Every structure is written in C-alpha cells, then in structure tokens.
C-alpha cells in the first residue's frame, strides 16, 4: 500500500477501515540466505538495502522483542555529519545524504528536518579545534560554518551570554544537520523491507550459533533453529553478550546513556544546540518537548536505567546554557545500552568466523548513522568487500594502531 495524502483522504471518507499492516508477522522459515540479528534501525536498514540496493532475497530480520524497541526508539534524534577524522567523515556525510532523500525512497514520512546543528565553543583552543573540524568537513564535501559570538547571539539569543561561567565565543554550525522522528525510521525501514519480501520475525531471540569447521551454519533461537548462508549481527548494546555465544571477545563495553524529554512547550529552539563546556545537547521536537542528553553514566551496565548524578549533571549544563528552562519540567528519562567501542568509532566487518559479520560499536552516535550503516553492512554482506566510506571500520585497526579516535581519549570506552 502506497502512502499519500490522497490515501489518507480516501481512508478518512471510508472510516479508516482500509489500512493494511505496516509489516507482516511471518513464521520463520527453516533457511535463509541472509539472517540479520537485531530489529533495530541498523538491522532493518541492512535488510532493506540488501533487498533494494543489492537485489538479494531470502532475508530475515530476527528481533528478540519488538522492532525498534532499542536505541532507535530511545535517542535524541540528532542527525549530522560534523566529524573530524578521515575514517569517519565520508561515512557520516554519506549517511546524511541518504537521510536527505530517505522519505521519498521508502515512502514513509520520518520527518527528516534539517534545522541545523550548532556546536558552541567557549575557548580559543576550542575554536582552533572546530576550525580544523569544519575544514575537514568541507574537504569531505559537507557543509559547515564557523560563527563568532555575535552571530551565535543573533541566531539563538536566549542562550546565557552574559552570566556564563564559560562564555560563548562562537560556534560551528552545520545547517544540514537536524533531527528525525526516530521511531518512524525503524517503521519505515521495516515496512519497506517487508514489502520487498524480508521476513521480520519479532519475539525471536538468538540463543546460539551453529557452526561447523569454523563456518557458521545458522542460529538457534527461541523460535527454533534457523539456517543461513550469512549472518549479520546488528544488536548495539547486546553485541558483547551475543558475540560471546560465538566465542568472540570484542573491543566494546556496554554502558548506559540516559536521555531526557521535557513537557511540551511552545516552540523555542529551532535546531540542535550542543554545549561546549559541559556535555549537553538539546533540540525541541515537533510536539514541543525539549529533547536533551549528556554523558553516559560511565560504568558498564545492561540495566537500561541510570542514576541521579548524571541527571543532575545534564540539567546543570542545560541551566548553565539556557537559564530560562528552569521552570520547565523534566517529563521522562530513560536509559539505553550503548555499545561503546575502544576508540569511539564503529565496526562494520567480517569476523574470524566465516559467514558471520558484525556491525556495532556505535557508542551513542548510532542513530544518525542508521542509513549508511545499513547500506554499508548490506554492501559487506552482499559483496564481501567494505563499502568505500566504511573501509576504516575494521576490527584489526586496534591491533595495527589505526584507531579512529575523534575525542582523543584512548582505549577507555566511557570517555568516548
């Protein structure tokens, strides 16, 4: 069923009785060419592009719960390609370009909204670093603008310019950055994949891998054994636990990141703003809630919830930046499990086991990567070669000393 304004009118006039399921609930088949573990944004996008771009069929996505229930359903919805390093920037720019045409391609309004991402700077050294980054973005074909304090003030006059502990000295603006309605990304990919014959199998948890002679044959699941020629793992925070079933140790730790939304407010903040003297990022959703976040709690966790000190720290930064939000109320907070890698950058690579492929280590930046991650993982699964924008995302970069460390904090995941 194609969605359109005309369809909505037609359905409205006939009692909205004609709407079809957005995806089917198929029974798992005994064998597939491709099994993608993880029905989150990355897994669904992978299946979608495998079918759509690489012409593959006999594809299944296995999800232990409900699709879109992980980090794609719980994030601060930001998209951007303001990366510094060669290994990253082309990939994220590819992703941003995919976002830009996504809705027309998969016929689902995910509300991709390029209202801009503004990184504030508070010191001369930060300006130097942002200039280096902005120039790197330009060299990679992305857009960036360096603003001085007056320009920032004109753009977002409500920030704390006059009483700040760390004065705002300017900002790096990417106008093409913005936000996307996160749940709709999962649903749009699911619907698109389903329409191309992908079996999306919910409530199907992978409990083990079946292997012979170093080659993977299929997966044991709570809904029985499912054979596959190739298996791709895209399970974010569960990466360590899942890959342990294949005896793989990863350069990844699982950490909890909390995110926050306020009660609905009349529009105030147009784009995304990030604070440079504390870890804080904020935007306002189309419904009016301030959506914001900060650092991960900082300790290994699979508990999907965090603690008060981080909440307080995030709100302190929010108030330091925007003292007018003091009387707005924090409505809801939630914790997601982040696959924090050892250099803060992801992995899209084959594993030591033939037929088993891995996509993870997204830290807490996975949402913006969803389209390119799916595309590049599909590329790897389909062709056994990395996509040109994802050649650096290999496991062996750590062994070889080719880390992609945007923050420069080294092999300590909770600092990335």
């Amino acid at each position, binding site marked *: 069923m194609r969605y*359109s304004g005309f369809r909505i009118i037609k359905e409205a006039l006939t009692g909205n009785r004609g709407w079809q399921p*957005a995806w089917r609930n198929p029974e798992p088949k005994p064998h597939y060419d491709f099994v993608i573990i993880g029905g989150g944004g990355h897994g669904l996008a992978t299946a979608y592009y495998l079918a759509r771009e690489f012409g593959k069929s006999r594809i299944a996505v296995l999800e232990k719960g409900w699709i879109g229930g992980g980090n794609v359903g719980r994030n601060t919805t930001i998209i951007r390609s303001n990366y510094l390093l060669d290994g990253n920037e082309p990939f994220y720019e590819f992703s941003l370009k995919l976002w830009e045409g996504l809705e027309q391609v998969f016929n689902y309004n995910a509300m991709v909204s390029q209202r801009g991402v503004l990184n504030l700077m508070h010191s001369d050294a930060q300006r*130097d670093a942002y200039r280096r980054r902005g120039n790197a973005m330009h060299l990679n074909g992305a857009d960036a603008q360096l603003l001085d304090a007056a320009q920032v003030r004109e753009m977002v006059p409500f920030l704390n310019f006059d009483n700040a502990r760390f004065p705002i000295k300017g900002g790096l603006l990417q106008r093409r950055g913005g936000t996307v309605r996160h749940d709709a990304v999962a649903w749009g990919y699911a619907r698109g994949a389903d329409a191309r014959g992908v079996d999306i199998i919910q409530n199907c948890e992978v409990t083990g891998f079946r292997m012979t002679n170093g080659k993977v044959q299929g997966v044991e699941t709570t809904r029985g054994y499912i054979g596959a020629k190739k298996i791709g793992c895209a399970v974010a925070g569960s990466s360590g636990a899942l890959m342990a079933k294949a005896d793989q140790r990863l350069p990844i730790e699982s950490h909890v990141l909390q995110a926050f939304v306020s009660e609905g407010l009349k529009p105030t903040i147009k784009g995304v703003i990030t604070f440079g003297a504390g870890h804080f990022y904020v935007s306002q959703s189309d419904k009016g809630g301030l959506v914001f976040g900060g650092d991960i709690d900082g300790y290994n966790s699979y508990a999907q919830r965090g603690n008060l000190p981080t909440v*307080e720290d995030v709100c302190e930064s929010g*108030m*330091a930046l925007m003292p007018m939000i003091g009387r707005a109320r924090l409505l809801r907070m939630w914790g997601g499990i982040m696959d924090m890698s050892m250099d803060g950058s992801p992995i899209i690579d084959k594993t030591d086991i033939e037929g088993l492929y891995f996509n993870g280590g997204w830290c807490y930046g996975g949402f913006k990567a969803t389209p390119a991650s799916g595309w590049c993982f599909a590329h790897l699964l389909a062709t056994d070669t990395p996509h040109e924008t994802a050649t650096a995302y290999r496991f062996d970069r750590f062994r070889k000393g080719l880390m992609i460390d945007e923050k420069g904090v080294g092999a300590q995941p909770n600092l990335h």
Partner: protein
Amino acid sequence: MNQPNRLAGGQIDRSKQLTFRFDGKTYAGHQGDTLASALLANNVRLMGRSFKYHRPRGAFTAGSEEPNALVELRSGARREPNTRATIAELFDGLEAQSQNRWPSLAFDAMGINDLFAPFLTAGFYYKTFMWPKAFWEKVYEPIIRRAAGLGRLSMQPDPDAYDKGFLHCDLLIVGSGPAGLAAALTAGRAGARIILADEDFALGGRLNAETFSLGDSNGPHWVAATLAELEAMPNVRIMPRTTIIGAFDHGISGAVERVSDHLLAPLPGKPRQILWRIYAKRTLLCAGATERPIAFGNNDRPGILLGGALRAYVNRWAVTPGKTAAIFTNNDDGLRTASDLMAKGIAVAAIIDTRSQGTRIEGANHMFGARIVDTKGRLGLEGIVVRKADGQTQTIPCTTLGVSGGWNPNLHLTGHQRGRPVWNDAIASFVPGDCPPGMTVAGAANGQMSTAAALNGGAQQALTLLNDLGFATSSPELPQAEDAEIRLSPLWHVPSGKARAWLDLQNDVTVKDVKQAHQENFRSVEHLKRYTTMGMATDQGKTSNISALAIMAELSGQSIPDTGTTIYRPPYTPVSIGVMAGRSTDGHFRPTRLTPSHKWAQEQGASFVETGMWLRAQWFPRPGETHWRESVDREVLATRGSVGLCDVTTLGKIDIQGSDAATFINRVYCNGFAKLAVGKARYGLMLREDGIVMDDGTTARLAETHFVMTTTTVNAVAVFRHLEFCRQCLWPDLDVQLISTTEAWAQYAVAGPNARKLLQKLVDPEFDISNDAFPFMGCGEITICGGLRARLFRISFSGELAFEIAMPTRYGDALIRKLMAAGKEFDVTPYGTEALGVMRIEKGHAAGNELNGTTTAHNLGMGRMVSQTKDSIGAVLSRREGLMREDALRLVGFRPLNNQDPLKAGAHFIAGTNPEAATHDEGYMTSVAYSPNLGHAIGLGFLKDGGNRLGETLRAVNPLGGDAVAVEVVSPHFIDPQGERLRG
C-alpha cells in the same frame, strides 16, 4: 466574592479568603483550595484545551495525574507552563492563564482541527507531507511546530534559587494515606529514623476525601491526631509537598520538595524547591491508587471527572463542578461517590451501573445494566445519553458526571528498576511484582483497597521491615475502618458508534486510534504508545494506559498481562529542570580556581581567561594599548629583552617520594629517569598504555628518594589518577607515595636575560645560582628573603634563561609583589598566557593543541625518546605499525610566504595545485601566533612526512573562511634553535 458552587463543610479555611486571577478574571477561594477546586467553586469548568484537536477540557482528576487542567501559572520570569491546576495550591494573588489556545479559551481557532479528525488519525503524519520533497521543512513542519507545544517558557532566566540536600533514614515512607500513617506510627514509636513524604500539601491521602468513620472519629480527625503524635517524635521527619520522583540504585530515592510553590514568591533566602537524595535502608511505598475511567462517546467534556475525584472535590474542598450530577460506574466505589454527593445535597440524576444488579442507595435512581454512549454540551457537560439494559436510549440532563472504572495501584516506583508488575483479577489491574531491593509496598499501592486493609498492611509491613533492621516493635492499635470488598465488573470502553471515545485525554488518543494501531500491526505496548502517542503526554497516561492496554488485549484476543505492561520510568511526576541543577547555574556552574597572584593581577588590570576551572591572566594591558596584540607583543619583547614574570601555578604538581620513586618514574615516562641526578630536572614524555602521548612536563629530583613532577594544567587530575593506578594496581609493592601539591605551591616563571640577576636579589646569599652552580635543568631547595623556604627550578618554556620559583601558596601574593619590586631596575614585565603561548610557539614546544590525544612521540619528532630497553607504560603499543609509519604526521613549523599573511590554526595543508579535497589533505595547523621577534605570523602543525619536507611550499587552506595562505615548511624552532639563550 460569590462562590456559587461552594458547599458546606470541607477542609478549607473559610476564615482566609484568597483572591486570584484566571485568564484575567478575578475570583475568590480559600486557604486549602487548589486552583482547580477554587475555579470549580466559581463554576468555572473549562480550564484547558487538548493537544491535538483543541477540545474544551476541564479538571478530570483531583491530583497529580491530571491530563486536562494545565495552565501557565504566575507571570513574567516566573511563568511556569503546564502547571496542573489540580495540585497548584491556591495563594493570595495567584495568577494563571489557560494555554495552547487562540484567541481565547472559550473560542479557540485551532478547534477546527476537531472537524478534520477523520484525516488526523493515529500516525497520519507518517503517511503524508512527503511531496514535494522540500515542503516538509519549508511548509508542513513549520505549521505543525507552531501549532504544537503546550505552555510557553518565560524566555527569561529563572529568578528563583534551588537547593540540593542529602537525607539518611532507616525507613522512607512514600505516601501518607492510611497505609503510610499506620506504618509511620509503627516505625516512629519503635524509634526508627523515618521520613514520611507526600506529594500533597495536606497529609492523609484519601482519608481527606472520604466521609466514612475511622474508629469513633473520621478520617481527617484521625489524620490530625496521628500527625500530632508523629510531629512530636524527634526521629520522624514529615515532608509534605514532597514527591519521591525515582527509586535509584542501592536504596537511594530522589525527592523534590516544593518549598515555596504555595507562596507568591519564595521568602528571602529560601529556595523555590529542593532536590533531596534520600539514602534509606528500607523504603515502604504507600502511594495509594489512581482511579481509571471507562471510555465512551464524547467522554471528555468539562464537568466529566473521575468518580473519586468528584467525591474529593465535594468532601475535601466542598465544591461541586455542577449542581446536577450523574454517576457512571462498574464497581461499588461509584456508589460511594453517589451517596457522598447526595449527602451534600447535590442532585444525583442517575447512577448508571454497568453491572446487571447490585446494592441500592435509598432514594437513588439506579440504572443497572446501562451504558453511557454519548454526552451533550460544548464547553461543558449538559447531559448524557444512556443506553439502558433494554436497549432504549435516554438523555439525562446533568452538569457533572463521575466516572468510576476501578482503581489502579500507584506502583510506579516499583518499576523504576525494571521490575514487572503482575495482573490481579480481583481489582482488574496490575499489582507490584519485583520491587527494587529494599522496597516493599503496602495499602492500595499493593492492591489492598479497603481502608482497614491499608491500615493493617502499612503497620504489618513496617513491623517486618523494622524487625529486619533490628528494632524492637509492637503493633499500634489501629482504628476500626471500612473493609468493603471489591465488587467490580471490568469494563474498559463502551462501543459508541461515530462518537469518539477518549482514552488519553491530553494527547487526544481514542479507542479508534488503538483499533487502527492494531489494524496496522502496531500491537505491542511500545508500538501502540509510540504510534498513537498514547500515554506520552505530561500525565504519562496515569489514567489511561491500562485501559488502552485492555482494549489492545481485547482486539488481539489475548489476556491483558500477555499483551504487555508499561515500563515505568522516573520521574513519577514531572519535575522542574531548575531543581535538578540546584545552585550550579550561571557563574556557579563549575567552581572557579584562582591563582596565587590573582588579586595582584586584578590590581594590574589583567584580562583573564578560563583555563579549565582556572582563571589565568591572559595579558596585562597598559594605558594607551588599544588592542590585545599590542600588550602581548610588548610582553614577549620585554621578556626576551630583559625579564618577564608569569604565574605557572596551574601546572599540576605531584610530589613523589619513596625508595622506589626513581624506578616508578622511570616506568611512567617513556624516556629514561632512573639515572637522573639529585639536583637535576628532566623533560618527561608520558604515554597512555595505547602508546599515544598522554602528557608531558618536567620532573625534578630534589633528593635521592624525593621527586617533584609537573604536568600540564589540563591533565593534572588525569595524570595523578593514572599514577595512582600504576602504583596501586600494577606495582603495589614499590615503595613510593604520591600526593598532589598543585595548590600547595605558588610557582612563577622568571624568564629572560636578566632573570638570574633579578632572582639573585631575593635568594639568600648562601645559595649560589650562578650558571656554574645552578646550570640549565638544575633544581634545588633554597631560602629567600632571609630564610623563607622556596624551591628553584632552572627550566624554560620560553626558551630564555629562565627559572621557576615556588613557595608555599600562602606566600604567593607576597612573592609576586616582591619579584616585581626587585625587578623594577630591569623593567620586569608580567606576562600572561598569550605571551606564554607566543614564546612557546617560537620555540616549537608542543602544548595542548599538539598533545590532542591522537599524537604519538613519533608525530612530535620525539620517537627516539621512547626507550626500547626498559618497561614503560605505552611503549609496547606505541610500536604498532599504524603508529610508526614513515609518512606519519610530523610536527613542523610554518611561516607565510608573504610576511603580511595571517595564519589560522585549524587550516589544512594541501600541496601544489591539488584541489581542496580530503584525498589531498596532508595535515593541519595546530597553533599559530604573531611573532614580534620575527615580524610575521608563525605556526606549528602536523604534516605528513613533515620532517623531510622543510623548505617546501604548501597551501594552508581554510575553506570555512574561504581563504588559503601559501606557507613554507620550516623547523618548529623559530627562535634560538641551538638553545644558547636558555643555557646562558
């Protein structure tokens, strides 16, 4: 002033009349009212508009679960959007406005949305607004955004203060209804330290809203007597207006106390609210229950309330939303509402009971087996349409309706650590399942719905918990109380044809939306919520989630528990962002660290700059200087020409002592330190274990077993932590002790050709600091000014003959003044961080911009410093192939071909005529300065294979600014490359 809907009785203080304004109109109420009760007393039922269709709405509840009656409270900078009128305590002079409507509450132009409702069903926006492509951002979304949102921010800084505090107790009791009070009595008498917290301003919970007897007294009287006893106990802390917002790890609860929200403005010196972190050995949740409605056609009109809320308004606040009432119920609780209303003289036109039979109230019009299918009235209820047991419909005029669908336990806190509730058929709702460690539940929150059960449950749970904690206890005598059994026949919604039946009142989610979500396969609870926005509003679906779940279960043919449960997350009710931040706002966001010479520098008119938490003097302008560069150039030239002074206290200092101190330092630096002589200092390069440079600095050996290490300002804390890790975790038996002495010593650089001469005027004569006795990299403990202890290091960041002199911090201010006085004859010049930066760039010293966490010793041209012959942190991994490439980035110097051209840090290097593209990117500029000694800009930067490219011309491109500068690759040592000055 007249309050037409005010009844007799209630727990308001009629002696205190309060005046308030709503939407510009003045009304009167009483002490003890909420804004909602006071508005109802004045016959104002219409209080807000819904989010999506802008339907007229009134108070639906009498508590914090309110979905409808949201207002903007107060004005100016104190404007507070989305405030629930049902819990906003009335005060004299209160000002409130309705929100999310235009031009007025009674006539809201956006109400037109309601007419288009068939087009605006669940998730409609995912299916349209995609064409033409550009229109989403340019047309559709701006319209949607303008229409969205609820209340308005003031857009001014919040003028009120917030505090944070910490509390400890044996037992935290959440909620002060019958269960909470019984528990508090039990625990209080046993001598346990308890905290009794309730979100309401009046303690007692439902006991304030009910009329039944409690022993030989009634609810409010028993509450008053109990509170009097508790208040007299020193071990009991009673906290009204305090919401427990979350149950966090290890028995820690977050609580927000609204200290001043019931006042016109906080009293002087008092905060508006306080965030408490409560450390409780045990937590007893006695949070009661929330009533749920039954959905039916047009069940959202102002005047339609939950039955228990209607009863609370009548009994506690002595107000009624309307003179003629009706009751719609599926359980006996609805009958209690009816009889209480009748007792207050309110006409009850009908009791529509979905059950086929039941108890009768004398004189009441019972309609058994009946359903409400529709309602009348535009801005307020005027009548209900009832389909009777025989299938006939009848319209009954009434102006208020109490709807009672059963009660859901307030078990939210039990789920904050992802405990799942379990279904209970008797109350047709969820009761607590796994609780967080240390938490138990009593009373209605635990499914014990009668007053007697709640009282006994609270006391019993308290006894159990106290016994766990080792207290001697005895049961308190509890009053006789009603112990009615629950008689409920679950009904979630009435099929209502064309009329929409509302579930989530704020977000306008209807039964049909749930049906459509099911039809489109959004069937899990999480999908249902996200697709329809069910339960996502400010009330978090407290009155609607279970009903929506039940309807989804009905549609799927599954049981309710099989369909799912909601995951409860903090906060229990929304909390102000300000209280979470406390005092850490504006200039107090983070501490400010001041250097020992700060006061003196202020006197000199210095300009200051943030360096991490530190404030450092950036430059010292002199009269007549109009541009910072003038000051900085002068400071540089004066230093290199004679002598300059700079406060370098902010560098980290770590005192290292012990017989193994040399061994230890030799392992944490990649270069050799084992053989450093006493009285000597050495430059040290510290790697992280992954082989990347972590920090650098000088370490001086003051004695055989005593070293002083310096770190960069920004890494002082991280390096100290790292050294403690090495000491305790890697080599626990080395005899070495560390202490951070950054703040213990004031340290000044004295640099320039006259540095020695200046110091000689202060250093006591028995200490020879001549070049022979105290050569470059010498160090020692000395005395100055006639016996004052000091340390002297002959180290140089500027490249000049230079010393750093350190004294205990208390002498810092005196020392800078003394140095300035002694240096007068040399025209001594204080210099700030800018001149410091210029001189270090002139010398090619790496600093923060170069040590950016990705650079190796190899990149810095110090690869050979990494010893191959000893164990040191980071040495092994520093030798990985990717870090040792021949063509790796190398630190080199740059100068513009044209002396007038400025350089920019952050520019990238492109060779020859290559295009400005990432594939041709060969490195980047890290630091730049104008060198007053050379008369042109200079820069440091990383360039691929830079060491072999001296003399080459490149473009330093800055596409951000659209400019590019031709630069020559030069040695990074711009001044005195042989280092003759610093050895002089």
